[in-house]
């Protein structure tokens, strides 16, 4: 458990030292929120209706943006190889990596959501529902993204392949995420969507570490 926390701690430490990457991602997230009203038009009602969808798309795309750095550095400098002989299993390390990936990429986006909510004229209940949906759904997004990153770790063009692989798999998250966020339309569907979203996150976070460690082991061969 201690080693598990240390892996997370070190990733956070490294992310703070290379703060630029997280910042880039955050700017990308906000930029999508700025671009969309310009493309759609400044109509308050339309923007407010589309806001949850826009925020989810922005979150999805900007999470994919940071995928290529998740494991590549550790692979290239030999850290992953040496972790084979650590006293903590590669599966636990993968789980720690999902958590640190979520803390580094998803949490800043969620914290920046109020900014987009204002620009997209969201009502308070809709905004609260969106934040809840993001909190419930982004762990699954982080887990899937980490799988994509692990699969493409040895590829030079990996930055391009991982999003292509992950986007179709992220469709359920998008569906339930946006439905859950549209709570003002009908409370009943939104609460079941929240439940599905949470279930998908639990499943993804529980199973992804095994897939990730398998892929990382195969990558070192």
């Amino acid at each position, binding site marked *: 458990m201690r080693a598990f926390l240390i892996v997370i701690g*070190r990733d956070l430490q490294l992310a703070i*030292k*290379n703060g630029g990457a997280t910042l880039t991602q955050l700017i990308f997230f906000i930029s999508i929120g700025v671009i969309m009203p310009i493309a759609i038009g400044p109509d308050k009602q339309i923007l407010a209706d589309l806001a949850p969808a826009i925020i989810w798309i922005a979150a999805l795309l900007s999470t994919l943006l940071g995928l290529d750095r998740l494991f590549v550095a550790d692979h290239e*400098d*030999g850290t992953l190889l040496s972790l084979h*002989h*650590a006293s903590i299993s590669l599966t636990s390390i993968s789980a720690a990596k999902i958590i640190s990936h979520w803390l580094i990429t998803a949490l800043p986006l969620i914290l920046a959501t109020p900014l987009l909510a204002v620009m997209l004229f969201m009502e308070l209940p809709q905004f609260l529902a969106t934040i809840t949906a993001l909190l419930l759904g982004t762990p699954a997004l982080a887990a899937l993204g980490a799988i994509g990153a692990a699969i493409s770790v040895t590829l030079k063009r990996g930055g391009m392949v991982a999003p292509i692989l992950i986007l179709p798999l992220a469709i359920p998250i998008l569906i339930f995420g946006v439905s859950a966020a549209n709570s003002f339309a009908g409370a009943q569907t939104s609460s079941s969507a929240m439940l599905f979203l949470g279930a998908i996150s639990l499943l993804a976070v529980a199973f992804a570490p095994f897939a990730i460690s398998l892929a990382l082991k195969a990558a*070192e061969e």
Partner: protein
Amino acid sequence: MTDCLKSQKISVSANNLGCFRDQFPIFNEISFSLSAGEALFLRGANGSGKTSLLLVLAGILPYSGKFEIKRFGENQQDIPANQLIHFIGHQNAIKPELTLKQNLQFWAQMYNGDQTSISQILEKARLFGLDNFLAGHLSAGQKHRLSLCRLLLSPRPLWLLDEPTSTLDSQGDTWVSDLISSHLANAGIIIAATHRTIELKDQKKTKSLTMGANK
């Protein structure tokens, strides 16, 4: 530290090891056996499969044939094989953004080692006083020394070293041969791929294996 190592006494034996990539043999028919306190130096041209053999022994690459680590110590049967091994390869597993101390602290925790001796270990590696220096500012040779420091973070009986002296100066060479000698004296086992000869105090304990001879 040495007591702990002695209780982890092991012997290793390899019988007819082979490693294939896309049905193509990287190496073939490698056999050796080492008992506690012995070293094996792998020699051979570039591309003869020295690094691949080390990766096979480290449990990273799939192989054919038989490789066995026998444990002799008391209550050591339950230590997983991967925690008996220190592997130091060409990639130094150093994060340039972190200080020397932070780098070693991480590995000490990953290897279940003790963190209190990090300053002493750095001193032995002639990186004295650089504890809070960013690892990214080190020279290639210094980085390599820092990487070798991982060997001392936790006592493990089997050391797999890939070109341990490749980027080192003559003082570094002496340090590495001292490291190796004392590990052997503590009943450890070393398998190292080397180009340059490493002078050891007790040459009787070393074997050598030339790879790629059958090609």
